């Protein structure tokens, strides 16, 4: 089931990319969104190209179809059209997951004031499961003020290996005003620094500011983190607080954040 689902996603993604490419040149009106002349594929309202498929309700096998003409169905098979009410994938990626994660504990870190080296474990978060994870299925990981993603390269030996193709950028706005992912702005971590600048709040280019008098780290207002997740969905996140309540550590590292996750490859929130 999962495999099929992945295949489906990859196919829709390819379809999506293809459609992007072709946008530059006039598309003959008889091509469907899967680039098949007079094909049955259709864009759903989330902008994802959905194909017709054959579903075996005994073996649960799928067979994607470019063309529904002359299809022979076995007795246990049924033809599912893209916009059929029985197609669970139709408009599936517009089903948004909205949540708040309270006090993700990334406080177990230390800074050596002599040489500035940080040590401690990164805490990994998975948007789809809405939980902290230990495996490679993470999207974003936290340690103190540092935020890394599961995509790109590691800039420090303490960091977990990147196993997926996640990406991120910081958008200016509010959770409501960021309604679409600007795919071109997505960045990945590189060997010199994470995609989200790890500036300890000193420059205003990251997600937080540091007050040199009170020594408090505050999330910057109007900064929304926009992610591509390891499983090729999109998410937006606003960090609300860096401290736990009641405060147990003046050094913080407790992330409370709001997030919205798409159900699939759609770039619309």
């Amino acid at each position, binding site marked *: 089931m999962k495999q099929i689902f992945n295949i489906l996603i990859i196919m829709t993604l390819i379809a999506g990319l293809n459609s992007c490419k072709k946008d530059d040149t006039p598309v003959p009106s008889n091509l469907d969104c899967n680039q098949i002349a007079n094909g049955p594929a259709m864009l759903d309202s989330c902008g994802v190209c959905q194909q017709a498929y054959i579903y075996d309700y005994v073996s649960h096998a799928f067979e994607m179809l470019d063309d529904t003409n002359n299809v022979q169905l076995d007795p246990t098979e049924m033809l599912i059209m893209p916009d059929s009410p029985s197609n669970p994938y139709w408009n599936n990626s517009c089903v948004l997951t909205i949540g708040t994660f309270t006090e993700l504990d990334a406080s177990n870190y230390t800074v050596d004031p002599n040489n*500035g080296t940080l040590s401690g474990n990164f805490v990994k978060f998975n948007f789809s499961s809405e939980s902290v994870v230990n495996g490679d299925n993470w999207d974003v990981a936290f340690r103190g003020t540092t935020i890394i993603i599961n995509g790109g390269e590691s800039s420090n030996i303490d960091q977990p290996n990147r196993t997926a193709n996640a990406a991120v950028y910081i958008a200016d706005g509010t959770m409501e005003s960021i309604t679409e992912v600007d795919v071109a702005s997505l960045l990945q971590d590189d060997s010199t620094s994470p995609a989200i600048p790890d500036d*300890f709040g000193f420059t205003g280019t990251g997600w937080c500011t540091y007050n040199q008098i009170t020594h408090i780290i505050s999330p910057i207002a109007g900064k929304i983190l926009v992610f591509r997740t390891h499983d090729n969905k999109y998410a937006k996140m606003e960090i609300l607080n860096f401290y736990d309540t009641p405060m147990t550590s003046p050094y913080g590292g407790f992330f409370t954040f709001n997030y919205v996750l798409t159900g699939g490859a759609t770039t619309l929130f």
Partner: protein
Amino acid sequence: MRFLKLLFILFIIPYFRIYAQDIEDTSIIKLEVKEVTITATKKEKEIQKVPFPVSIIDSKKISSTGSSTLDQVIKNETGIITVPTRTGTEGVQIQGVDASYTTVLIDGYPLIGRSFGTLNLQRVSVNDVKRIELLKGASSSLYGSSAIGGVINVISNRLSEDGKRFTGKLKLGSYNTVNPNLSYQFKKDPFRFSTSLDYYETSGYDLIKTDMLKTVNPFYNYTSHSNLGLSLSKKLILEGTLRYYYQNQLNTSLSLDDEKLEGESTIKEWNAGYTLKYMINNNLSQEINIYGAYYRTDEFLEDLSNNLYDQKYFDNSLVCPELITRYNRKNIDVMFGVGSENEKLARTDFLETKEQKLNFTYGQIDVRVFKFINLILGSRFDNYTNYDSHFSNKLGIGLNLSKALLVNGSVGSGFKTPDFRQRYFDFTSSTFGYTVLGRDVVLEELTNMQEEGLIVNTFIPLESLNTPLSAEKSTNINLGLRYNLSAKLNFDINFFKNKIYNLIETQLIANINALPVFSYFNVNQVETRGLEFNTKWNSNKWEIKTGYQLLYAFDSEVKESFSNGEIYAKDENGISFQLEKSDYIGLFNRSKHMGNLQISHINKNSTYNISFRYRSKYGLSDSNGNEVFDKYDNFIKDYTLCDISYITKITKHQSAQLGIDNLFNFTYPQYISNTPGRRYYLILKFNIK
């Protein structure tokens, strides 16, 4: 303690002695003398004729407030607030312009020794002061760098007629404050001499009892200050001033493990200025000034087992010779000055002693046309040997529409060269690990670090650090009028506008490992504007003075960002929302409305004083995630401070004063560190002539 006993003997004994001879108080005879200012034009000029905003605090006013130091006196003035600096000292904000842009003079000579750009006004004793002049607005055309917000000139007592005067004063107050002062003035042509000795001791105060540190640690200081004048001939006059100041204060801090650290901090300061004046003829005179100043602080901290934890010093000196030529005829006064300045600074976190040399020349023309128009035009050229040179200009026009009414306008420019810290600082915080590098050393230091193999990750192109910092510059406009409605009632109103650009601030430039490195950049542009209104009414028995300032102060770029909808704020749940143009309030620590009211009731032998100071609400720091001050931020609520005092004459030359400062016992421990609670004091004073 023995010192205290000695002082008591000195003071209390003369207090009970009766003097046979009665000498009239000269201040009563001189009541008719018109108020003059020397700061506005570097020559004595009647205040009613000066086309710049100037205010005078006379000795009577100073003593009615019971103040010991300059910061205490000056905060009673309209539009002035004293602001605590990062090191716990107090600077002064004028017309909403930050404390680091003010020049403070003692008898015309500038103080040095700025901490984070700010001069500490607590250093200046006012026990032996004749008057304090406050010139508002940019005055670099006369005073060079740092005269952007204004100039404060503290003029010490001296006799203008033959005689002698010995004054003793003892102030005892809350927080174990002991402040004795002895002063002596003598004049017998051709010789004039005055000297004073001031001692101040306090146990400090603690606004937040729950933490391990006191708000202000106990300290003692003393000042000795002498002036002399000698007419060598009818044409040749020698004048000199010498001041020495020493302070010793307990120094405390906390280590990284919250262990208490204790030590000592000391300040030593010398100021010496000599002038030789030569009157060539009735119209032409020349004077040679030589001024030297030295300021040194030393501080250290030890842990509980007396191991040295931290040690710092700051060693600043200035030598300034100057030649001034003056020419005056009936309707024209011309002044021309040339001079040079050599300032040195050696301190912890500097690689070596740094030096700045300056040659300057300035001129001023003061003309009276059609009898009622006064034009003052001043210009100064500052030529730094290792820095950009500057022209500063000032033009003032005064229209004496009647004897009682002066309408005036002035335009001036000001500048402040980057200070030594902004150019040569080489500092790494032992507690937080960050590094700050002055603009003149940053490139070399970063290159060294890279060569040493430290991982240096730069955020900006290094070539952009190749250019030196520019001076902070300002323009200032004042438009006002002074009206003496009658001998009893007068008022003045002044509209002002200051624009300061190229403001220097720190910005992150690189990371060494993960630790930030900062340097200095010219970034912001701020503007302050508003109006000031003062009025004074007096009768035989009453004197009422009141003042008001309206102020708008903002950062021009921030204002634009608000207009463009680029600024957001966070609500109490941490959720962002967009702000509108009208949500911007302005700069931190500026109140839109400030006012004061002073009422004195004067009887034959006693005076009652009450004074109020009001500040409307203001912000001290951002509280909603955008680093700027908007209407959703936390405010410091408006507040009023009230002082009262009662002065009584015991004999012709003895008086006592009782007073309470901060009668309402207003404090705001977390945010306002320079306002302790209610304080009581007693001042005993005697005069022998």
